[in-house]
């Protein structure tokens, strides 16, 4: 009888259970992280998403309002449309350029000898670590005669009156893009440097024998395919930073900026969340931003699969 029972094919649930028991060490290894992650990262995200369906002013108990926040946001909020437009412009320009910049600089630094290599890494990462990153740009684009940009342009005879750079709706977004690009050498840059160090040197030797002639071929056929995980990681980082441009805009152009020229999805969110205490609405903005990034991520991951082919 027992023989027969054992020969009976296992049900799906039994297979799953057996599989889980087989992998119990792995669950044990994952558990401490997953517990912290679940409580302090995942759960707050889920709660924020739930709040986005309510009317929550942080004083009274939230009321459930269905999709009202989303409908207002997408169909009645003209400023949100400006914010979307600006965010997309900034993301489409700074995302790819700063991704390339991070890679190219990491790649160039990787060719150097050790002390110089570490020195340049420090130099390029400096804006992320020194804490007063916006000061230089405020000085450059200061609206009076002392502003570096104004004084240079006046000396050259190109303009006769100082330009109010950060109060002029035509210039604001381009200045934000410039500053954002300059700030872009953060985590992805570091991961590229580490990734380049991880490329197996023997592959280059083999490549030289196989007829790779210049550094561009070497880059495309050897270096890039060997560091695909870092490229994927960098892409996710780039998406999260270029769609979530906010503090640059607030620091440089103020909140709200002139004619909302520097208004982004994130500054809109900060406006509702921190100034007006409309957390339901702010959470709806966050959810829309989240879905936008997920979509961008899917597209980028598709593109990256082609690297090295």
């Amino acid at each position, binding site marked *: 009888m027992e023989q027969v029972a054992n020969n009976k094919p296992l049900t799906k649930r039994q297979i*799953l259970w057996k599989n889980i028991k087989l992998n119990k060490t*792995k669950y044990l*290894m*994952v*558990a*401490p*992280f*997953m517990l*912290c*992650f*679940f*409580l*302090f990262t995942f*759960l*707050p*995200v889920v709660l924020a998403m739930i709040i986005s369906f309510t009317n929550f002013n*942080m004083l009274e108990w939230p009321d459930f309002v269905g999709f009202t926040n989303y409908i207002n946001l997408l169909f009645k909020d003209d400023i949100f449309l400006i914010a979307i437009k600006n965010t997309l412009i900034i993301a489409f320009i700074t995302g790819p350029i700063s991704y390339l910049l991070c890679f190219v*600089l990491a790649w160039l*630094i*990787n*060719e150097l000898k*050790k002390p110089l290599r*570490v020195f340049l*890494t*420090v*130099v390029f990462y400096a*804006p992320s*670590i*020194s*804490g*007063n990153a916006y*000061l*230089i740009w405020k*000085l450059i684009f*200061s609206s009076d005669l*002392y*502003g*570096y940009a104004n004084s240079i342009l006046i000396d050259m005879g190109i303009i006769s009156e100082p330009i109010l750079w950060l109060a002029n709706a035509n210039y604001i977004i381009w200045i934000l893009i410039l500053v954002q690009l*300059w700030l872009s050498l953060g*985590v992805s840059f*570091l991961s590229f440097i*580490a*990734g380049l*160090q*991880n490329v*197996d*040197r023997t592959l280059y*030797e083999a490549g*030289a024998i196989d007829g790779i002639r210049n*550094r561009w071929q070497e880059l495309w056929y050897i270096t890039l395919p060997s560091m695909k*995980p870092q490229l994927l990681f960098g892409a996710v980082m780039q*998406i*999260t930073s270029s769609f979530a441009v*906010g503090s640059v805009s607030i620091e440089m152009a103020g909140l709200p900026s002139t004619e909302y020229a520097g208004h982004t999805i*994130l500054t809109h969110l900060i406006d509702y969340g921190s100034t007006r205490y409309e*957390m339901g609405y702010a*959470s709806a903005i*966050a959810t829309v931003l989240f879905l936008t990034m*997920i979509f961008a*991520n899917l597209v980028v991951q598709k593109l990256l699969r082609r690297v090295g082919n």
Partner: protein
Amino acid sequence: MKKLNLKFLKREKKMKGKSGKRLNRSLYGDIILFTFLFIFGLFSAWPMIFVINNAFKPLNEILLFPPKLFVKNPTFDNFRDMFVLMNNSWVPFSRYLFNTLFITIVGTVGSVFISSLAAFPLAKYNFPGSKLMSKMIVYSLMFSSAVTGIPSYIIISRLQMLDTFWAILIPTFGTTLGLYLMQNFMSQIPTDLIESAKMDGAGEFKIYWKIIMPLARPAWLTLVILQFQNLWGNTGGTYIYEEKLKPLSYALSQIVNAGVARTGVAAAVTLLMLVVPLSVFIISQSNVIETMATSGIKE
């Protein structure tokens, strides 16, 4: 062909440990690329040079508008004033320093350990739920932290963790960025290596400690930088109210908040807060480099 090969290997041997320079380089390319590096470097270095110089400027030079990048009459007055103010504080400054050191060291070490331990199975094995966990981790990176602050606060206060270091430490342990970074790096480690270690009778923990961690060193050194920088500048925010538990950066920001007269002290404080993470950055970057050469799996 064979001759070329040998020559190349010889060259590689000579270069090893000194420089990564390889074949296939053109002079013009070098000139263009390094000019670019130089110009970009000038712009990037500006804020740091400014912070360093500012700390040594007398007050009249700091308040000069537009500010000058370099100091003309360097002085240690700002540091002297800073130490005087520190000694006047009613909670001894050593206490603030201890708090920050504790949070920073336990937070960084704990985060690196806990997330690397989880990153290894997620990167190298398929088990029920592993795909789902990885997806949740990546996507949670994309949700704006500006609105998760309030739910996090509610959770932390419900767990009775307000006014303890846990309020800062445990959320740090659950940071997804570090896990995702290490998961990506660990996915590059050859599976054969793990398999052969298993044949030799090594368990998962032994593999993690003896094989995975040494090979993923560039990844976790990068995480060390990120976490250290975050925690060192942490002011305790809305989670810590008890004066005795406040970190250094909070205390320093308090002595600076007393108007224009403290501008000089503020400059000194900025430099002080910069020096430690910068040193950690330099040390860990020096170690990121040439991991493969010492790891012994090149063959």
